[in-house]
């Protein structure tokens, strides 16, 4: 972070600090949940549990990249958060249409209802924050 203007607009600063903290909580929640599911009852719903693990990985990547706040990490964070948004919308919709397939098994089921719909809000806030902190040159 040699560039002063980039530092001032870093994704980790100001309200971004809180965003990183919330992403961190979800990284922990999704990974722990996936770990328990895969370790204890993987055969029951392998697809749902692998999705849980995938969600966990996405949250970890987004947390670390937003916390780093460099030019490269912004790009990775943007991709990760776009995947996250697609994930919560896809899994959310599928879990509404076919509840049998996703019995509250992932953080994204029914758009994250088990977590107060924060999983639906988080990618929108994340993308907004990346947009709000963009550098003029880029």
């Amino acid at each position: 972070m040699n560039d002063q203007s980039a530092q001032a607009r870093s994704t980790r600063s100001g309200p971004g600090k809180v965003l990183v903290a919330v992403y961190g909580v979800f990284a922990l929640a999704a990974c722990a949940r996936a770990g328990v599911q895969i370790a204890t009852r993987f055969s029951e719903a392998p697809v749902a549990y692998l999705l849980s693990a995938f969600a966990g990985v996405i949250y970890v990547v987004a947390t670390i990249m937003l916390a780093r706040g460099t030019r490269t990490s912004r790009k990775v964070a943007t991709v990760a958060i776009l995947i996250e948004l697609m994930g919560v919308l896809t899994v959310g919709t599928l879990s509404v249409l076919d509840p049998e397939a996703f019995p509250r098994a992932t953080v994204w089921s029914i758009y994250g209802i088990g977590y107060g719909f924060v999983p639906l809000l988080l990618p929108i806030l994340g993308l907004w924050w990346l947009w709000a902190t963009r550098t003029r040159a880029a």
Partner: protein
Amino acid sequence: MIAVLAYIVMALSGAMVVWGLVTAALDKPPGRAQLLFAAGVEVVTVVQSVVAFVILAQGFRPVELATTIGYLIGIVMLIPVAWFWANVERTRFSGVVLAVAGLAVAVMTLRLLQLWIPAG
């Protein structure tokens, strides 16, 4: 899990949430007393997890054993990480970070209480 201890953890972590939001509203970084309080909440949270593990070791089996163990381990990690993150760059938002951790600890303690039902 001891219900009284869980309620104490929820009350203390709830106070951490309020305190963090108050200093943020006042545009101040968390003060020394506030950080010490957060450390105190962490100590009580660790005590809660240790007590729960002792009860598990004595043979108590909740319905969701693996989930319970995951919560008991995960819950003690929140405040130390939040403490570190809050101190990286001390602003009003550091208080909100502590509030986020406090809320997560309170919610996880509530879930632990709900999960603490003996397996049939």
